[in-house]
């Protein structure tokens, strides 16, 4: 595994600025669709003569308007849903606890250069990490996860098995930058989980071909783990847990 630099979380002010911009711009679009569609319905119903003067049949125009009402409402709901999910992720109560990696990654196929790595303890609420791995795994089972120690973190490396829309930076930055493009997609779910993990000192780096997740080792376990790893066999082991 190539050693990679742990990504720093985007500054909160920058994310907030992007999100406010996206909310103020992206939500206007479905709002416009709703108001214009409503006016088109009114136009067709109250001024049938005017409606029939145009080439499209009134029924067809009504279809356009009704479609606009339906889709505008759905779009608005989709984008508000993404903002709501981010808000809930900020408010969600997390219950960090110390647990061995092997327990966190139960059911996965672990690959580690050091036999002791799966026994190391991490300290976090395991639910968001498990949700993230399950999402990245898609239908692939068991999930193959490579482990590597990096400073006070353990790095999980895996190949995502789900289709993602093209994006730049991280899922969270991408979603905050465009609700129109990403709300309602798997990337939005990943953004929420990224936020939950970053709240706990974890970090996520996601590309189409590889995902890396930095999880903080338990504070008391770090020194002991380092000692335990000294002299550990530098052989690759593969364990199905």
């Amino acid at each position, binding site marked *: 595994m190539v050693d990679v630099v742990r990504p720093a979380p985007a500054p909160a002010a920058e994310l907030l600025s992007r999100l406010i911009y996206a909310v103020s711009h992206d939500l206007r679009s479905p709002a*416009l669709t709703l108001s214009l*569609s409503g006016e*088109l319905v009114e136009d067709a119903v109250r001024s049938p003569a005017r409606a029939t*003067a*145009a080439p499209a049949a009134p029924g067809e125009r009504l279809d*356009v308007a009704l479609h*606009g009402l339906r889709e505008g409402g759905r779009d608005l709901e989709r984008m508000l849903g993404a903002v709501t999910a981010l808000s809930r992720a900020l408010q969600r109560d997390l219950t960090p606890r110390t647990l061995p990696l092997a327990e966190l990654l139960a059911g996965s196929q672990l690959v580690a250069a050091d036999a002791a790595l799966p026994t190391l303890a991490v300290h976090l609420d395991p639910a968001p990490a498990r949700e993230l791995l399950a999402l990245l795994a898609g239908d692939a089972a068991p999930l193959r996860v490579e482990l590597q120690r990096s400073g006070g973190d353990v790095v999980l490396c895996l190949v995502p098995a789900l289709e993602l829309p093209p994006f730049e930076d991280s899922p969270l930055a991408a979603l905050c930058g465009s609700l*129109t*493009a990403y709300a309602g997609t798997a990337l939005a779910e990943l953004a929420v989980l990224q936020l939950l993990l970053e709240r706990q000192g974890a970090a996520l780096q996601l590309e189409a071909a590889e995902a890396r997740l930095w999880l903080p080792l338990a504070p008391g376990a770090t020194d002991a783990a380092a000692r335990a790893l000294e002299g550990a066999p530098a052989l690759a082991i593969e364990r199905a847990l």
Partner: protein
Amino acid sequence: MSGALRPPAVLVVDDEHDHALIVRELLAMAEPGLSVELVAGASSTHGALPPSIDGAPAGALVLIDRLLAGRDCYPMLGRCACERPDLTLAVLSAALSEEERGRALAAGAHEAAEKPATLVEWRELLRRLLALSVMRLDTR
């Protein structure tokens, strides 16, 4: 605007399908018989011009949504202005600040405006853009 004084065609490049349909309806009401083509355009912001724009009739009016699939349309706009100077290019956006309007004009748009919130304002805007494209046809 009389039926004789109008652009040969209007292209609506917008990945907001409902907006595009509504604009087509309004154009049909304002100018019966006017050729209007909808272009999703979402994947066409980089690389070559979308074929429908590249092959648009000379002098056509092109209405382009500022954001296509979450990206600024400016790269495509610049190529349009360079490769098809005969087209009249108008950038529309659900929200357009003065700074963004300036960027759109600098990128090659002949006009840039916020998408109106009422049908009356839309009709007025479309009349203005159709007149602009006719004026550019006349001056060529």
